[in-house]
């Protein structure tokens, strides 16, 4: 079997898994629904309870899980290729936390209520600042230690500022909502959130997809890439704003969800022959599958407790991260 057929097979299998998990996500929830009734409710227009549950509660949740998972997987793969750093990931680099800060500022000051698109755009702005800071501190050298330190600094600062903004809100409930912004949840999201975030995410995906070829060349090193006609200014623009747009929009509606962008590209890299252009679509599908599965898990494990989805991704992701650090520790010192 040629490498190309194997890649197509992998993409086909991943797409099938995403589709199955999407269907399973639609069937998961505290209200008991039969298999056929549930899918009938999805297309019914009678506005009865079943139709409401399927169309207004479960469908947006499943769409967001798939889209946000794809965002995190894709941006993780793109960042690892662009920064040539195995530990690059929106959560670890503080990009998600900074996007949370932007979203919190827009939401809790009332800016987002006056101008709905302000929510994803403010999150995008927060994410851009984080990417630029991390890039300035760590550069494209591929040094693992500096990038982790930069990420730690950016995420703890953004987390503290988010907490401050929530504490200063006149709404007494707001102060307790730091958990959502740090761990993320898809509970009770609606179609409004889908319409608000999905278009911005798609713009981000398109920009990251355009990185496929340049990233392949960039594996040879920055100088080699430039000599082969890769416009580094354009690559930088696409990487920074593609990541910021997709991760910003995702975080604005679901909070910061960690580790997906780290695990997925690492698991899939050996299967695609370490070529960034192939890793990008595979990671997008893998991320969607992982987040759909995690979101199904939080609803099965603790149905009525609004368990945060970041808890599940951290349970898988943190040991994985430690294992990666262990593997790369020679380059750390």
């Amino acid at each position, binding site marked *: 079997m040629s490498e190309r057929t194997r890649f197509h097979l992998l993409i086909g299998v991943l797409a099938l898994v995403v589709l199955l998990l999407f269907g399973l996500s639609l069937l998961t929830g505290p*209200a008991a629904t039969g298999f056929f009734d549930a899918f009938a409710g999805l297309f019914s227009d009678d506005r009865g309870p079943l139709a409401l549950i399927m169309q207004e*509660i479960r469908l947006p949740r499943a769409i967001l899980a798939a889209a946000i998972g794809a965002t995190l997987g894709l941006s993780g793969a793109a960042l690892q290729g662009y920064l040539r750093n195995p530990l690059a990931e929106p959560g670890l680099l503080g990009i998600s936390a900074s996007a949370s800060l932007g979203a919190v500022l827009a939401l809790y000051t*009332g800016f987002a209520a006056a101008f709905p698109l302000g929510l994803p755009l403010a999150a995008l702005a927060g994410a851009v600042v984080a990417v630029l800071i991390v890039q300035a501190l760590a550069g494209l050298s591929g040094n693992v230690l500096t990038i982790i330190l930069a990420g730690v600094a950016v995420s703890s600062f953004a987390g503290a500022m988010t907490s401050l903004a929530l504490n200063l809100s006149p*709404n007494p409930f707001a102060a307790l909502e730091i958990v959502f912004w740090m761990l993320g949840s898809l509970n009770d999201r609606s*179609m409004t959130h889908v319409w608000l975030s999905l278009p911005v995410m798609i713009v981000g995906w398109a920009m990251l997809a355009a990185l496929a070829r340049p990233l392949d060349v960039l594996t040879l090193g920055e100088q080699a890439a430039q000599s082969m006609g890769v416009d580094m200014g354009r690559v930088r623009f696409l990487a920074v704003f593609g990541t910021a747009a997709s991760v910003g929009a995702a975080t604005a509606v679901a909070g910061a969800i960690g580790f997906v962008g780290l695990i997925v590209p690492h698991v899939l890299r050996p299967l695609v022959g370490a070529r960034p252009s192939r890793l990008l679509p595979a990671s997008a599908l893998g991320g969607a599958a992982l987040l759909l599965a995690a979101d199904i898990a939080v609803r099965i494990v603790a149905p009525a407790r*609004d368990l945060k989805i970041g808890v599940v991704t951290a349970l898988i992701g943190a040991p994985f991260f430690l294992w990666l650090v262990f593997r790369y520790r020679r380059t750390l010192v």
Partner: protein
Amino acid sequence: MWRASRSLLLGALVWLGGALAVPAAEPPARVVSMNVCTDQLAMLVARPGQLHSVSWLAADPAMSVLANEAEGLRLNRGLAEEIFLMKPDLVIAGTFSTRATVTLLQRLGFRVEQFAPVASLADIRANIVRMGDLLGNPSRAGALVARFDADLAALRASPPSDQMLALYFANSYTSGGGTLADAVVEASGLKNLGREMGYEGTVKLPLEMLVNAEPELVAGGGRDFGRPARAQEAFRHPAYRAVAGAGRGIVMDSTYWLCGTPLTLEAARRLAAHADLAAADE
């Protein structure tokens, strides 16, 4: 040296506090309440000038029904130090007030009386009587109890509407059996969805379950604090608006539900009025 002087200071404080306490037979002249629920009960029962200070929440219209009445009183933040300086004869606290503060005040020799949160209408009645005894104003407490009984009898006299009401608070919480909110719904003549679903206490009710139960009335929404919070976001969810729309939604003023006082019956009266309106529409 430092240790010795500190224990001396503590001893002096204990002595000072002990000297301030008056014999229990005489009604306390200087009373401080440090819980928003005991604040309101004390304001209703106390003689003029007897209540020296209430908690700052008592003056917050989002938390207290008697916010206007609290304006003439000193407001405290429930800190042992500020209450010590007020030299009260009696401190009234909730059992949920900060334990450390209550223990410290007792060690300093203050008389602290604690009230547990209310879970039924009978508890309200008992608390009014107890507050009357503590403040030495049983006649005022007796009048409040008589009025409370009459109001409750009037509510119970009107035929129950038997409509199903879902309580839906911020963060998707609802109240099942054994809660004050359930007792209020029962007094209004409606049926509480939380109890019918077998819930006990205050628990999460997923939006899906609310939609699936098809309640005839939904009491939720809560107060507008001028700024949004995720806790209240479910009230704007299309599925919630479909269930609570078209005359079925009741915007609750949670201040009446928060504490068990004679004023709590106002919540039951409002529910009953809404139920009558909804029944008339059909």
